C-alpha cells in the first residue's frame, strides 16, 4: 500500500479506535478530514495521459567534460491536464550545469511544452531513457504516475592531448610509405649507409668522395620510412590502478591511450587497441579517421574490472599482434610479474613502448603530503622501486614513459625523448 494512503488511513483508524474505546466523539470526529482525504485520493481516478515526447541532443558524440544541450518536447494528444510533472531521466554520470530537467505546470489539450537543459558528460556511453510522468486530475490530489521510455544515447570520448612526435622503432614495418624508420636502406631522408653502385641507381646518389678514395662507384643509401603496425594494450585490471581524488589512474591511462592512438593514426600507422581487464576488447588494426572513431568509442566504454582470469598480464593474447611489430603497453606495472611479462614481450621481438601512469597514494586513497617524514620515506622507497623496475626494462630495450599523472602526458612524452637524445649523445 502506498504511504500516501497508508499513513493517513492508519492514523484515522487509530483515532476512530481510540474514540470508540474511550467513547469520545471528539477523537472520532478528528479523523474525518483524514478519511475524506483518503476517500478523495481513491475516488479521484486520474486517467492515463496521452503525451508524446521527443528528445533532441546537440550532439551524440562528445569529448568528456564537454557540455551537451538537451531538449525535451511534449505534445499533449489527449485531454488537457491541469497539473503535470514530467521529469527527464538524465543518466547519473551527466552532471546538470544549466536549466531544469523537470516540467511542472498545466498542459492543455493539443498543447506543446518544452524544457531544455545542459549537462556535462563524463567519459562513457550514456543512455537517456525513462521519462517520469505524473498527471493530476483537475480537482484531485492523487497523481497518475507513469513512465515513458525514449532511448537516446550519447557517447563521451576520453579527452586527450595532442602529442609531439614520438619515435618508435619496430623491427618490422609495412610496405607503404610512412613516418617510421624501417631500418632498411632505400628512399628516405636520413643517411643509412653506402653500397656498390648497380645499374639503375640514381646518379645523384653516387658518393663521389668514396669514388675518389676507392676508385669504385659507391652510392649513398637513406633509411626507408614506412608505416608500422602499432597495437596499444590498455591495462584495465582493477588491481593495477589506484584511486586518486575523484578519478583513478585508469582514467588517465585511458586518456593516454586515446592520445597515443590519435597520434599514431595521424602519422598514418596501422593502429589497433586491446583492452585487457574485463574481457579481451579488441579493435582490429586499421588506419584513418574511422579507425580513430572506433578506438575512441571502445575507450569511452572502457571500465576497470577485477576478473581472476585476467589477473596477470601473462594472458595477453599476443597472437593478435603481427610479429616484430610495435606494442604500446599502457599500464602502471605494479609488480615483478608484470615486469617479467613486459620483458617477455621484448624477448618475443616486439618493440615495446611502456607508458606507466602512476601517482603515489596512501592506502586510504588520499594523495600523499610531503609534510610527514614517514610518508616522504615511503614515497622515496616507492620511487626507487619504480626506477629499478623501469630502468631494468629500459636496459633490455623498452622505451619507457614514466608518467606521474599530475603532469600533462605531453610533458612526460617529451621527457623520454630528451632521455633518448642524451643516451645517443653519450
Amino acid at each position: 500500500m502506498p504511504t500516501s494512503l497508508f499513513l493517513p488511513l492508519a492514523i484515522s483508524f487509530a483515532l476512530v479506535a481510540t474514540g470508540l474505546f474511550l467513547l469520545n466523539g471528539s477523537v472520532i470526529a478528528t479523523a474525518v478530514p483524514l478519511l475524506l482525504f483518503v476517500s478523495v485520493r481513491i475516488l479521484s481516478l486520474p486517467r492515463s495521459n496521452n503525451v508524446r515526447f521527443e528528445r533532441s541532443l546537440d550532439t551524440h558524440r562528445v569529448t568528456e567534460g564537454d557540455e551537451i544541450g538537451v531538449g525535451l518536447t511534449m505534445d499533449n494528444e489527449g485531454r488537457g491536464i491541469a497539473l503535470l510533472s514530467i521529469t527527464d531521466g538524465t543518466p547519473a554520470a551527466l552532471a546538470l550545469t544549466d536549466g531544469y530537467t523537470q516540467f511542472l505546470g498545466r498542459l492543455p489539450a493539443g498543447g506543446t511544452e518544452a524544457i531544455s537543459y545542459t549537462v556535462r558528460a563524463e567519459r562513457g556511453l550514456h543512455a537517456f531513457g525513462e521519462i517520469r510522468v505524473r498527471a493530476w486530475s483537475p480537482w484531485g490530489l492523487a497523481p497518475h504516475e507513469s513512465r515513458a521510455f525514449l532511448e537516446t544515447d550519447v557517447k563521451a570520448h576520453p579527452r586527450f592531448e595532442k602529442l609531439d612526435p614520438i619515435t618508435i622503432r619496430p623491427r618490422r614495418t609495412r610496405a607503404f610509405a610512412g613516418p617510421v624508420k624501417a631500418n632498411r636502406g632505400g628512399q628516405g631522408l636520413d643517411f643509412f649507409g653506402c653500397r656498390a653502385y648497380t645499374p639503375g641507381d640514381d646518379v645523384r646518389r653516387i658518393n663521389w668522395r668514396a669514388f675518389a678514395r676507392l676508385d669504385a662507384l659507391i652510392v649513398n643509401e637513406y633509411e626507408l620510412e614506412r608505416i608500422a603496425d602499432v597495437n596499444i594494450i590498455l591495462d584495465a585490471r582493477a588491481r593495477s590502478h589506484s584511486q586518486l581524488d575523484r578519478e583513478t589512474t585508469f582514467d588517465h591511462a585511458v586518456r593516454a591511450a586515446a592520445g597515443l592512438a590519435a597520434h599514431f593514426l595521424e602519422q598514418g600507422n596501422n593502429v589497433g587497441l586491446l583492452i585487457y581487464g574485463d574481457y579481451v576488447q579488441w579493435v582490429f588494426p586499421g588506419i584513418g579517421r574511422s579507425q580513430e572513431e572506433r578506438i575512441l568509442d571502445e575507450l569511452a566504454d572502457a571500465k576497470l574490472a577485477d576478473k581472476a582470469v585476467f589477473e596477470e598480464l601473462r594472458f595477453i593474447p599476443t597472437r593478435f599482434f603481427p610479429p616484430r611489430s610495435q606494442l604500446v603497453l599502457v599500464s602502471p606495472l605494479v609488480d615483478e610479474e608484470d615486469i617479467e611479462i613486459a620483458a617477455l614481450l621484448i624477448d618475443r621481438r616486439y618493440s615495446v613502448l611502456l607508458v606507466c601512469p602512476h601517482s603515489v597514494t596512501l592506502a586510504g586513497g588520499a594523495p600523499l603530503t610531503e609534510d610527514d617524514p614517514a610518508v616522504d620515506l615511503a614515497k622515496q622507497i616507492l620511487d626507487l622501486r619504480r626506477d629499478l623496475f623501469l630502468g631494468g626494462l629500459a636496459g633490455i630495450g623498452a622505451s619507457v614513459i614514466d608518467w606521474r599523472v599530475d603532469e600533462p602526458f605531453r610533458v612526460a612524452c617529451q621527457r623520454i625523448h630528451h632521455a633518448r637524445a642524451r643516451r645517443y649523445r653519450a
Partner: protein
Amino acid sequence: MKIASVLFFELAAGTLAIAGYLYSLPELAIASILLGGLTALGLLFLRPAFGHAVFILYGALTAVFGLFRMPPILCAGALAAALIGWDARRIAPQVSAASLGDRRRFAIVYSLRAVALAGIGVLLVAAAGTIRISLTFGSGLGFSFAVLVLAALFLRVLRRDRNSGEAKHGEDR
C-alpha cells in the same frame, strides 16, 4: 513545497497551542509549541521520512487534545493542516528538479486544492454535531453499500499502483 509544508505544520501547531492556552491546558500548549519548533527545524534539514514521524506525532497530540474534550473542529482543523503539511513534504522531492517559478506555482495550486479539501472535512466535522441520522434498515444498507463501493475502489487503486506501467511512446529525433 518544503516551505508550504512547514507553514501548514506550523499552522497545526499554532492551532493546538492556542487551543491549549484557551482551554487551560498549558502543558499541551507547550508540547504543541515544542513540536512546532522540532518540525520547523527537522523538515527543512532532515530527510522526507522525518515528515512521516512528525505527522504521527501530530496525530497523537491531536488525539490527546480530543481526550480532553477540546472542540472537535479545532482538533480536526489542526490535524487537517498537519495532513496537508505532511503531503506537501512528501511531494517536495518529486518536484525538486523543476524551476523555482514552476515549483512556486505548483505549491500554490496544490496547497489551494488541499486546503479546499481539508476545509470540506472540517466543515463536515462542524456539521456533524447538528446532523442526526436515524439508523434504520434502509440507511444501514445504504451505508454498508457505500463502504463496499469505497473498499472496491480502494482495491482498484492499489492494483493500479502496483501495475502502473509505461505510458506513452516517443521517438528519438
